[in-house]
Structures are given as C-alpha cells and as structure tokens.
C-alpha cells in the first residue's frame, strides 16, 4: 500500500536514533515500538504533570500483562498486529501537496459529490494552506462566546494543565484504564483529543465541533475524548467527517467517555469514514474504539448516533451505563460495509437505576464480500425496577456474497423489567432496482435512494447539516456495489 511505503521511506532515518534516544526529548520523533521510555517521552513532550504520567504508566504496565489477550470474540478476521512495529508519537506525515491539482481526482470527485467547500477539500486532501481564512476566525469568535458562557472546549492536553481537577476526577471514570486491550493501550499512549465541560443549567447553543471541524488538530491514532455535562445542561457533539480521510496509521484505538449528571443530556454524533482499503481490502484502517457514556444523574440522557462507512475493520460498541434513576440511553447506528470491509459493532445498555429506559436502532448494510455484525448487550440489574429496553436490528443485503449477523445478548435480573427485540433481514431486489430505473434513476441513484430509506430513522437523529452530508455519503459508499 502506498501510504505504508511512504511512511516507511519517510521514517527510515528515525530508526537510526533508536539507541541514543532516551534522553533526547528535544526530538520531534520517537522510534518505533512501545516501552516505558516512549511513554515518558510522550508525557514529557506534553509537559504533563506527574499524575498524568503515572496514569499512563499504570495503564502500560497493565497492558503488558494483556500481551496476548487481544479480544477475539468479534466476528472479524485480520492478521495479528505487531504493536512494536507501530509509532506512538509523531508518526511521520506525508509531504504536503502544493495544490489540489496534485490530489487524486477520484478523491476530489467524492468531495464534490459531498458538497465539501473548497477550503475544506484542501485541508482534507493534505494541501498546504497557510492563508488566514474566514472559517478559522469564525471558529475563534464562537470559541470566545463559548468561553463567556462557561463552556470549556479544548484539546485534552490543554485541559490537563488548565483543569486538572476535572480531568483527574473524570478521566478513566467511565472507561477505566483496565477496561479492555485497546482502551488500555489508549490510556498509555493517547496523543490528544477533545475535552468538553458544560456548566450547570446551560443548554449549549451550538453543535460543538461543527464550526471547528476543519480547524481541528490532527489528533492521531490514539484519540481521547472526555465530555462532562453538569447538572441540567445539554450539549450536542459532532465527531468525524463525511469526507474520506486517509491516515498514515493503520491502527486506530480511540476512547470516548461521556458523563451526564442529574437532568443533563449529551447527544454524540459520529460519522466515521476512514479509508476502507482498496476493493481487495488492502491498506484500510483498523478502527478499535471504546465509547461509553455514564448517565450518572437522575433523569439524565445520553444518545449515540453513528454512521459508520469507512475503515477496513470496525470494532466499536458505544454504550450507556444507566446509573441514575429514570435515566435514558439511546443508540442509533448505520453501519455500511462494502467490498472486503468488516464491521462488528453495536452497543451495551447497562440498566442499574430504577425506571431506566434504553432504545437501540441498528441498521446494517452489507454489500460486496463484506461482513456486518450487530452485537448488542442489554443488561438489567437487580435494582433496575421497571427498566425498559427496545431493540430493533435491521439488516439489508446487496448481492449474495456478503453477510449480516445479529448477536443480541439480553440479561435481566429484575422481573419487573421489559425488553423487546425485533430483527429483520431484507435484500434490495432486482424488481426494486428495475422499478426505480424505469423512472429514470441511474442504478447507483436507486441503490442510494433505497438504502437511505432503509436507514432514515437513524439519519434523522443527526444534526441537520450533518444529515444531508450523511445521506450523500450513504450513496457514495455503496457505489459499484450492484451489477
């Protein structure tokens, strides 16, 4: 794969520093592999306080004990990952391109279809942009407004310095460093990510990250996000981008933690479109993500919406721990796999408080030779009186070489609780395609229309402007899947 080769070439020189490296914190680069020294280096580069370093080391030491315990229960197949062959700090970047003329025309065409503004296209495609442009100043203006309202929205590396009490209190409180293989790795080596704190009673008046999307720093492969909604507050947070993104790093292991206190609500929307690899599945991103939200307070609510179209492998289960009485967890998911993509994704709803409710709507679309698995757990604890869950899993198959699987686990320890599960599997029929085409639609347009109809319920939960892009994306990611 080209990207790997480029990476290899760019970093050849770093290898040579390997042995004399330990004391050299001035360097911008760290050699391959993982060790306590590397972690100390990362922490030192970020000028972190001792407690943060200790946290990382604790995670690392724990990770070593897991060495051969990568989860294998998911329905995914991929070659064993050599963690010592990866870079954990300052992975070398490709050279910036001089202009859009140098960008793969196919990629540009996709951007155009998605209606991405020119400037954003340049940033996404890795074109050097050094002019000061409008949207950045727009972003700055909004950032100032947010600050005035008491919202903290910053890189997590900055929050470690400016708001250590909040970070100390909440980091790892939903996804402990010992949670799972990938989360542990993330805790040891995370590079950066977002930190959000919404003060009591505030309804955050804008979608966080909409305005900041193109302004975001490259947070790398081990992203760490922490969002805290204090009592009675509300926030809607958007992650990702509909435009296909390339990355030099094949392995991604992000961690996202959400905390909703009494009467607070967090809406977290993701569009994931990492490079899926070529038609044979070569070179795509491996995405192992741990996302979890804790509804700590009474009447709190966390809502996950995800549109997963990219990556060669997706391993992801955004979950809710419903601790507060009458708290609500919702999960809306569209997962599209085409060609050789594999996705094993779903959610966990852990009902602990009384009167807690959860809703799961999952739409899996599989085409080509792809495999798509919904894996979900609904657990109802002994104290969760009258807890309720509704789960609906629909699968849509395009062609006859792909697979769809539904693996729901339900565990209830409270007789007053109710759970409902519905599942359907359907196919796009030749008759449907012919019917649409007889009305003048191109085949791809027909597929897009039908698939968008199939996942409408989920797309509707996305913030408006994101929803429009996501609709187009659904069509684009299935191009070439029929005929």
């Amino acid at each position, binding site marked *: 794969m080209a990207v790997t080769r480029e990476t290899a070439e760019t970093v050849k020189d770093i290898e040579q520093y390997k042995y004399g490296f330990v004391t050299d914190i001035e360097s911008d680069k760290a050699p391959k592999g993982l060790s306590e020294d590397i972690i100390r280096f990362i922490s030192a580069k970020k000028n972190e306080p001792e407690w943060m370093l200790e946290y990382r080391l604790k995670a690392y030491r724990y990770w070593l004990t897991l060495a051969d315990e990568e989860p294998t229960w998911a329905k995914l197949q991929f070659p064993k990952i050599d963690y010592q062959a990866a870079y954990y700090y300052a992975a070398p970047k490709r050279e910036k391109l001089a202009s859009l003329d140098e960008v793969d025309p196919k990629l540009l065409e996709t951007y155009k279809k998605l209606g991405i503004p020119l400037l954003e296209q340049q940033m996404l495609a890795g074109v050097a942009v050094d002019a000061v442009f409008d949207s950045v100043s727009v972003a700055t203006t909004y950032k100032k407004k947010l600050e005035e309202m008491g919202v903290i929205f910053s890189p997590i590396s900055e929050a470690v310095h400016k708001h250590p009490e909040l970070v100390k209190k909440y980091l790892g409180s939903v996804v402990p460093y010992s949670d799972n293989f990938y989360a542990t790795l993330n805790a040891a080596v995370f590079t950066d990510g977002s930190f959000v704190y919404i003060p009591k009673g505030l309804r955050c008046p804008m979608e966080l990250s909409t305005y900041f999307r193109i302004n975001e720093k490259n947070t790398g492969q081990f992203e760490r996000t922490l969002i805290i909604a204090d009592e009675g507050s509300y926030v809607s947070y958007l992650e990702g981008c509909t435009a296909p993104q390339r990355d030099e790093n094949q392995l991604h292991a992000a961690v996202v933690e959400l905390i909703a206190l009494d009467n607070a609500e967090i809406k977290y929307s993701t569009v994931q479109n990492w490079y899926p690899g070529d038609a044979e599945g070569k070179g795509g991103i491996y995405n192992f993500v741990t996302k979890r939200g804790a509804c700590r307070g009474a009447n709190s609510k966390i809502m996950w919406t995800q549109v997963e179209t990219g990556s060669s492998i997706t391993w992801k289960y955004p979950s809710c721990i419903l601790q507060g009485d009458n708290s609500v967890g919702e999960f809306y998911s569209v997962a599209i796999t085409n060609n050789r993509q594999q996705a094993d994704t779903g959610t966990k709803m852990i009902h602990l408080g009384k009167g807690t409710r959860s809703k799961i709507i999952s739409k899996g679309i599989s085409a080509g030779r792809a495999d798509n698995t919904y894996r979900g757990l609904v657990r109802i604890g002994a104290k969760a009186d009258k807890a309720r869950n509704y789960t609906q899993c629909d699968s849509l198959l395009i062609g006859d070489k792909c697979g769809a699987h539904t693996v729901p686990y339900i565990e209830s320890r409270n007789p007053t609780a109710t759970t409902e599960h519905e599942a359907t599997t*359907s196919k796009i*029929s*030749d*008759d*449907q395609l*012919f*019917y*649409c*085409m*007889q*009305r*003048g*639609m*191109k*085949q791809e*347009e027909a597929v897009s*229309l*039908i698939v*968008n*109809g*199939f*996942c*409408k319920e989920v797309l509707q939960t996305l913030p408006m402007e994101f929803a429009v892009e996501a609709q187009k994306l659904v069509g684009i990611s299935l191009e070439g899947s029929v005929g």
Partner: protein
Amino acid sequence: MSLLEIKNLHASVAGKEILKGVNLTLEPGEVHAIMGPNGTGKSTLSNVIAGREGYEVTKGGVLLDGKDILAMEPDERARAGIFLAFQYPVEIPGVTTSAFLKTALNAKRRAEGKSEIDAMEFMKLVKKKTEALGMPYDMIKRALNVGFSGGEKKRAEVLQMTMLEPRVAILDETDSGLDIDALRVVSEGVNSLRAPDRAFLVITHYQRLLDYIVPDHVHVLANGRIAASGGKELALELEAEGYAKYLNAAA
C-alpha cells in the same frame, strides 16, 4: 417520423419464445390499445420495451424516434421518454412517495440540462397532480406502494406518469383494481396528458376503459403476434365474442 416502432419483435423468457414477430407503430398523438388473453405476452412486450432483465430479444427491434433502444439501459430508455405503468407496482420500503417522485423528477430534469426542482415548486406540483387524481396529499408521505391498496397502487403509477410527462406511456392493466369512480378519475388523468407529441400504449382486458380513454387503434395480441387490428369497435366485438376466433385462426 413514427414515435415508437416495434418491428418483427421476437422475445423469449426462460428459453420459451413468447413474442413471435410483433409489429406495431405508434405515431405521435396516438392512443393504441392492446387486448388479448392471459399469458399471451402483453406484459412481456411492455417489459421488453422498458428493458427489464430476463427477456431475450432474438430478433427484431424497438425504435424510438427511429433509433433502436434495445441496447440502452432501462434508465436511459426512461430518460429518453419511455414510461411503464406497472401491472404489479413494486414496494419500496422506507422511501416516501414524495422522495421517490422527487428523485425521479430530478433525474429527468438533469438529463434535460435543467437544475433540480426547488422544494416549494415541487410541493405545489405534487399537490396539483394528487388533487387531479383524487389522491389525499398525505399519501405522498407514505413509503411508495407499501401497504397501498390495489387501486391506490395504480393511482400512484398514474401520478408518477403525470409528474414525469413521458413521450411514450405504456399502461399495463392500469384499470384493473380501480373502482368505478377511480377509473373515471384516472382516465381523466391520462386524457389530460394526451398531446400531439405523445403516444400511449394501453393494455387492458376491459372494453369499459376504452369508453373513457378512447383509442385510435385497438390490437389483439394472440399467439405472440398482433392477430388483428381495428378501431374502437374491435374492442366491443371482443367483449361480445371473446378471443376464440383469433386463437383458432392462429392454431
């Protein structure tokens, strides 16, 4: 030039020859009716014209404006102006009638080099067309054909036709399943589209429809060929006497 010309068309389904040399010419402005016994190949003929997969044309051609369309994809034929009102309309779950209509209309507009229709204009247009067909406007918010009654499905087909304004409209038993009032309303819808540059091919089993949509020509399709052609009176004669004469003659 003739609008649509079907020339010595032979077509097979699953290895069995169904059309055995159909000849039929539609001049601009004309309405042709085709009648014939069950299983004789009327729907086969419509499907072959529209380009459905699974039909093998072994001989002959179908010409639109003098150009053979048999090598074209179904969507290309549609954008060239061929419309088929299906005998059995297909359900499209999750896709609202409105979204479907809009996508189809925009596909046509793009092909004509026009911009996509604006939301308000679209709403107005749909409102007008549904009203004319006696359909409740709310119907367009429902998934296309899903849970529609037989008659509602047929109306939805005609709605699509009046929105897309094709050049050649083939109506495959659009009258079956319609109640008496609906038959009249739908026929009015068809008649309102009659125009000097448009032609209709109306497949029906019932003479009654032709009281409303008065054809210029009536044909009998039997044994894979046009066995007889005439004016409107042919339909009356068929109603009285049945198809025995044509089946025997051919046998």
